[in-house]
């Protein structure tokens, strides 16, 4: 390992260092403010390092592929973690409680996500996913009081363990078929192995994809999503929805591309079924939800259905990988905005995450309500928001590839989705409850600033996307 490889690894190294420093700090002086500052500094340095490392983009050992694409997503994930950190400050800082471990877990989970994003080998894939996941279980269960977080964490833990087992079995089968564990190696060997033993290759890839699909919570691997979303503390839900799912999708895309899985028709058929089911079932189940976090859980199922459409249309052309970049960026920003508002408005009160609790928010807190409105419009794919440009990409790709079946599911799914996103906006604009509900408390500048920043980013991506498209094209 030479110096330039170390420089390429700088984001990972800084994150590891932050984790070590946090551990040492906890053993010397327990102070959660200090822990918060250390984590924030660590994330900021990592953010800088992702830019710095671009000049040294290269494969680092057989395990990690550091290139501008993975560095961009690393930056995105770290940004999401930074937002989570800002949101967590309120939720996790009741006086007299010791919560420094939470920050350590957060940093470790981000480290896992970055490794996952840069992975080019089954081992680093598993390593990153487990590091991210294990830290996440603890983060979900972190609030000591209340049974819901605990229930959510156990549910997530047990099911994740199953998914990991399936994933590992998939690795084993692929190894048996090809004798390779790196993505590229599998890609080189799988085609010949497929001719001699198609069942082994298909079963292996199917199991790997199932394991990843569980983390993405696409139908039929979605059962855990609403409970975990609802039970987890709101900032952690936001983290799960953005960092965890985003990183896994990047890994899936990388595996799919490098292992050249797009040449196997049975696999594409299976992915199409998963995508259609996710778009339809996710949106349908979201219709009747009364809890906004559960609603967003189902909505995220649908959004990963749309993203799978992009994956299916990936045939090595440039536009499709741009589409993944754009869609994930739009999705992550929009989710962050939504969860930032929920964290601010509802806090950790289980009753306040009901949609009914958002009634009249426009007249109580304009900034938060505007941010949530923009987020909902972006999710629904209304022009001028990032979500629209993202959907624009998906629809163009589906049309160019003549995937009319997927396209019709997408249109029907989006049509259903408008209803529940509008429901939230309508609820916020209700005027009848203004007098009964007082002001939600003192101004919180950091929350307002976060909401405004995310709103501005969503609107900018939607109304002036050219700079970002150029940037994404160069990745």
């Amino acid at each position, binding site marked *: 390992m030479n110096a330039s490889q170390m420089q390429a690894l700088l984001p990972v190294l800084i994150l590891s260092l932050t984790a070590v420093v946090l551990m040492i700090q906890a053993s010397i002086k327990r102070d959660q403010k200090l822990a918060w500052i250390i984590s924030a500094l660590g994330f900021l340095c990592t953010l800088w390092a992702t830019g710095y490392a671009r000049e040294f983009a290269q494969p680092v050992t057989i395990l990690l592929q550091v290139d501008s694409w993975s560095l961009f997503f690393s930056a995105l994930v770290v940004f999401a973690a930074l937002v989570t950190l800002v949101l967590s400050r309120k939720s996790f800082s009741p006086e007299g409680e010791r919560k420094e471990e939470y920050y350590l877990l957060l940093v470790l989970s981000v480290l896992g996500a970055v490794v996952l994003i840069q992975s080019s080998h089954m081992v680093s894939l598993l390593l990153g996913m487990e590091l991210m996941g294990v830290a996440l279980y603890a983060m979900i269960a972190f609030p000591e009081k209340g049974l819901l977080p605990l229930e959510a964490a156990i549910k997530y833990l047990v099911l994740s363990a199953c998914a990991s087992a399936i994933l590992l079995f998939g690795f084993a089968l692929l190894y048996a078929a090809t004798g390779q564990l790196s993505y590229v190696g599998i890609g080189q060997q799988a085609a010949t192995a497929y001719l001699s033993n198609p069942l082994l290759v298909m079963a292996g890839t199917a199991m790997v994809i199932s394991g990843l699909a569980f983390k993405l919570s696409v139908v039929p691997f979605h059962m855990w999503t609403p409970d975990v979303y609802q039970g987890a503390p709101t900032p952690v839900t936001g983290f799960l929805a953005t960092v965890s799912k985003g990183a896994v999708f990047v890994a899936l895309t990388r595996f799919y591309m490098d292992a050249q899985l797009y040449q196997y028709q049975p696999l594409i058929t299976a992915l199409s079924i998963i995508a259609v089911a996710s778009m339809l079932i996710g949106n349908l189940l979201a219709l009747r939800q009364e809890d906004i976090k559960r609603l967003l859980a189902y909505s995220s199922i649908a959004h990963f259905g749309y993203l799978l459409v992009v994956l299916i249309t990936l045939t090595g052309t440039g536009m499709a990988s741009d589409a993944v970049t754009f869609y994930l960026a739009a999705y992550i920003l929009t989710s962050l905005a939504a969860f930032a508002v929920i964290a601010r408005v509802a806090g950790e009160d289980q009753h306040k995450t009901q949609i009914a609790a958002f009634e009249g928010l426009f007249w109580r807190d304009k900034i938060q309500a505007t941010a949530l409105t923009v987020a909902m419009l972006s999710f629904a794919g209304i022009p001028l928001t990032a979500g629209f440009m993202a959907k624009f990409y998906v*629809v163009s790709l589906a049309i160019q590839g003549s995937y009319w079946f997927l396209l019709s599911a997408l249109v029907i799914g989006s049509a259903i989705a408008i209803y529940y996103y509008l429901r939230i906006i309508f609820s916020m604009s209700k005027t009848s409850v203004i007098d009964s509900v007082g002001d939600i408390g003192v101004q919180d500048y950091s929350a307002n600033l976060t909401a405004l920043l995310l709103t501005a980013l969503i609107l900018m991506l939607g109304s002036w996307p050219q700079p970002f498209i150029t940037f994404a094209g160069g990745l």
Partner: protein
Amino acid sequence: MLMINLILILIVGGFAALISERFGQNIPRKVALAVVMLDLVYLLLSLSVMPELELLQAPQPSDPQSWLMHYSREWIPAFGIKIELAVDGLSLLMVFLTLILGAVAVSASWTDVQVRRGFFEANLLWTLAGVLGVFMAMDLFLFFLFWEVMLIPMYFMIAIWGHENRGYAAMKFFIFTQVSGLLMLVSILALVAVHQSNTGVWTFSYFDLLNTQIAEQTAFWLMLGFFIAFVVKLPGFPFHTWLPDAHTQAPTAGSVILAGVLLKTGAYGLIRFAVPLFPQASIEFAPIALWLGAAGVVYGAVLAFGQTDFKRLIAYSSVSHMGFVLLGVYAWNALALQGAVMQMVAHGFSTAALFMIAGSLQERLHTRDMREMGGLWQNMPRMGAVAMFFVVASLGLPGLGNFVAEFLILLGLFQVDRWLTVIASLGLITGAAYSLLLMQRSFQGEPDETRQLTDFGSREMLTMAVMMIALIGLGLYPQPVLDIARPVVEGLLNFSATVTGELL
């Protein structure tokens, strides 16, 4: 820059109205009125420097330089998306209609809206900005953007200031338009993809896409995507069900904008996009569209007859009148098309005025139920006389704009399909029936002497006078409007004739 400024003035004016609420409850409405007037004056001034001859020249649909105004600049070059605006006679008429009715709507909201006036006027102005964008955008992406974005302020107007069942109505309105818009988006993207595979160029420009060669089967489906989006907005039978709810629940100014302007975007879209982009498919589809139009005329009229709610009756009458527009467009000859354009303008004024009267009644009586009205002429003679004027205008009395429009449409339609003309004429008869019923039930009959009602004041009379003059002008001397519309109509007819290789 002119056309962009028209839109920008309204957007910035919206923010100004929003902020101005801090300085007083009554400031926003004045700001809004000033902004609309400024826009109108700005448009008139810039037109006055334009040589008159140009207005009368027939523009080539596919040559932007022959249009009255054309503006284009890069926006998202990665997809060939431009900020491209252009205006011909048709757009110009619609822009004028929008701004005049915008001023009317501000006047309608003068006392009607009591809470959060700043936000209301802002939404009103933003809706107008979106509508102007729809009438001027010549880049299909930009057009779609305006088409969708104008829904949001309109949604808020219904959802926040609407009547008792506003949530349901606002939701229904938004979902109908959004879902049909999604179909249009798919059609637009597919059209662009076909053009791209033909020529290798990514472009959303109307002028480039006009001559796209599309396989017959594909063209039919793409045309259908556009058609459904526009017919939902029009609204044409059987996609009209959102309209009675939205109209009835919207605040008065919202109804004025909705009926006067928003519905016309559907008609405009049909004339501008659905037919010229897919001439061959449209000709094949025309018989079905004509039947839908005729069905709308009769069905809307019959339903209007059965209503007891003042606003609902007018809403259904709009369905009937917009059926005429659909007939005019798909008859696709010079007479019928000019009639359709005329109908768009005349219906805009007459319905906007009727909704304003309905709003005034609701403000005074706190009901829209006609069974609780009666003899109002005695209580409010001025309002009664005004209502009488617009009711007879709406039923198509010769001498007023609506008559000219419907007569031209029927005349044009007669050349295409006689029996359909007969059916559509039924709409005129039933129209007379329900319009007079409206008048009888609410303004005539035994007056309730205990009622203390204030008659129309000078602000209302002034607003009504504007629309009366417009309708009388359209009825007695329709030539200027026809002159402005004719070159556009001829250009479109020539274009579609050369494309399909046959004259209709």
